[in-house]
């Protein structure tokens, strides 16, 4: 394999990175929270409960993004037999699950004052719950299979099954009648969130992405140390 994929080379970078990422995360999170909780205006209809959006929406985005990344890396890793990609996927998954659960819980808290219910079996909520189950399946599979090759195969299959659900989550609000409203942010057309609310939303998304990166680096370093201790494994 290429020189750059040697565990020692990667480790010299990834072992130093967390402290910088942590510092940046704290700065961005502080700005994001100040914007989201204090500086941003209340909504004309929902008043202050709109502030839950600044946690709920970024958390949902990040959990979807991480699952897509895991799937992509697993598929490439499986086809070309790149062990490193599996370790990256494995290290990404925990923060994806955490944000998935955050999205479900904050959604529930947001739903009560606005919709009038904690939980509804609406297509988007249900498909997000399914995504959480796939995350759990994925993480449990890594625990169960000690045999490396077996774990690679099983987790790849789980990601393929799970990825089918991702476009369903995205388009559920367009395909069916749901309690969720249609998407507010579109790449092609004008966003229906006012710019003063869009700003904290993007800052919070950046903060959550940094947090995922931080957790990922910590997990990934652990994996690299494990490989180093075994001595003979190459990525």
């Amino acid at each position: 394999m290429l020189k750059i994929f040697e565990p020692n080379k990667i480790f010299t970078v990834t072992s130093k990175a967390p402290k910088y990422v942590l510092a940046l995360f704290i700065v961005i999170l502080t700005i994001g929270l100040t914007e989201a909780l204090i500086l941003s205006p209340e909504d004309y209809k929902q008043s202050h409960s709109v502030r839950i959006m600044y946690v709920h929406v970024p958390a949902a985005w990040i959990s979807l993004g991480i699952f897509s990344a895991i799937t992509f890396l697993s598929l490439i890793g499986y086809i070309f037999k790149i062990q490193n990609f599996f370790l990256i996927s494995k290290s990404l998954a925990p923060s994806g699950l955490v944000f998935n659960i955050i999205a479900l819980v904050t959604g529930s808290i947001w739903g009560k004052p606005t919709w009038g219910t904690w939980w509804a079996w609406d297509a988007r909520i249900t498909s997000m719950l399914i995504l959480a189950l796939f995350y759990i399946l994925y993480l449990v599979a890594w625990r169960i299979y000690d045999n490396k090759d077996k774990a690679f195969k099983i987790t790849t299959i789980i990601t393929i099954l799970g990825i089918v659900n991702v476009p369903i989550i995205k388009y559920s609000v367009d395909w069916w009648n749901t309690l969720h409203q249609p998407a507010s942010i579109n790449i092609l057309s004008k966003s229906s969130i006012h710019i003063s609310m869009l700003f904290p939303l993007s800052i919070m998304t950046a903060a959550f992405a940094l947090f995922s990166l931080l957790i990922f680096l910590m997990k990934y370093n652990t994996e690299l140390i494990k490989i180093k201790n075994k001595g003979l494994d190459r990525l």
Partner: protein
Amino acid sequence: MYGRKVKLRFFFILLILLTFVLTTFLILKSLEENVVFFKSPSEIKTLAEIQNKKIRVGGMVKKDSISVVSKEMKFIITDFKSEISVTYSGVIPNLFEEGKGVVAEGYLKDKNFFFATKILAKHDENYMPPEVKAAMEEK
């Protein structure tokens, strides 16, 4: 360029993905009835028979249609094609308002009357500060 095994694995993955996408699509297609969270008044009108089963009707609360007599509330759900009258008594969510989205859960009396046991408010995809909303309404 790539080995035969790599190509085989690639097609293997592609096939699995295709199979699952198609299977999921077919399952969802056949379950459409249950995947939708609510029916619109127009869909209610096309129902073949009225079952004594809990269903949900959703749409807009018609302007000037809410009336409260003692503890009973009456309003009309519209999708701008058909309408359905709803009677309800109980707690209403904060966002329940005339001209806004609503989902009522309950039982159909006939195609025009609905007894709601629970009211959920739907909100739209627009988020803006009150000043912006006021400025927009002035235009």
